[in-house]
């Protein structure tokens, strides 16, 4: 049962990932379609960032992740290197949790 579910989930997961690249890849797309596809990742990633920052199951909570994201936002705005942004966010959250 577990093996069957695992393999089914693998197939579904791959089908979801591959549908776009296999169906739309290699085709000439009109400028309107391209413009739309160029924007597809933007609201998804923006939503992912916020859900990962304030989401906790079905609740929205404000904890150490929020100031960590604020620190990251300031560093991104100041054009700090990628690893500095990521490590500063982790350090902020870790420090606040250690103090709490």
């Amino acid at each position, binding site marked *: *049962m*577990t*093996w069957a*579910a*695992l*393999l089914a*989930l*693998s197939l*579904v*997961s791959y089908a*979801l*990932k*591959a*549908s*776009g*690249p*296999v169906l*739309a*890849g*290699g085709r000439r*797309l009109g400028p309107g379609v391209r413009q*739309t*596809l*160029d*924007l*597809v*990742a*933007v*609201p*998804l*990633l*923006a*939503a*992912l*960032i*916020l*859900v990962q920052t*304030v*989401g906790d199951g*079905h*609740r*929205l909570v404000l904890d*150490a992740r929020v100031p*960590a*994201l604020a620190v*990251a936002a300031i560093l*991104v*705005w100041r054009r700090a290197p*990628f*690893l500095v*942004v*990521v*490590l*500063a*966010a*982790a350090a902020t959250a*870790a*420090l606040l*949790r*250690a103090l709490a």
Partner: protein
Amino acid sequence: MDVAIPRPASEIVTRAVGIGVAVGVYGISFGVLAVASGLSPVQACVMSMLVFTGASQFAFVGVLAGGGGALAAMGPAVMLAVRNAAYGLSLASILPPRLRDRALAAHLVIDETTAMARAQSEPDAARRAFLATGVSVWVFWNAGTLAGALLGGGIGDPSTLGLDAMFPAAFLALLAPQLRRPGAPVAAAAGVVIALALVPFAPAGVPIIAALAGVVPGVLTARGVRG
């Protein structure tokens, strides 16, 4: 048109490895949880190799750990994987042109690879960023899963190290250059509002898929800007 600043190849590799290491730590957590929820170490490792989408895998073993059956565990796991279909569409133009290569690369379509690829301004750099991140995350995620599945408990919660805060920070750094595109800030804001409004009610995974609707005001704004 993309207006992000081009990145040298070494920068791409540094970022890809950095993201991979963070994912690897979560891979350890996943391995521990998977075995604790009743999967065998082999099942945990096969899952990480073949399913390869972290949120779905955590949801799957979470349901098992809560006493649910493998069938019941499929629902939330699939819902969390649906967003990969939208990522696949947004990456279709930068994946390798040959069908066989594209079919193989498609396995690597996840949050991290999408964010890294879409942050690049040139298609070649985007393809390199996608592949470097995909390979790095796949290797670290599977190495982590194996380690966690074999070592079992005794590994602390990654959030005490602030590792949970690393992912939104990384995605923000990768989203920022994309926000210079026409309509992108509106699309991002709409996506955030939709997702957060749905979190209290909708099943896991649905808020982020629904955020896709943010593309509509984004495209309308971009067209309005252009006249």
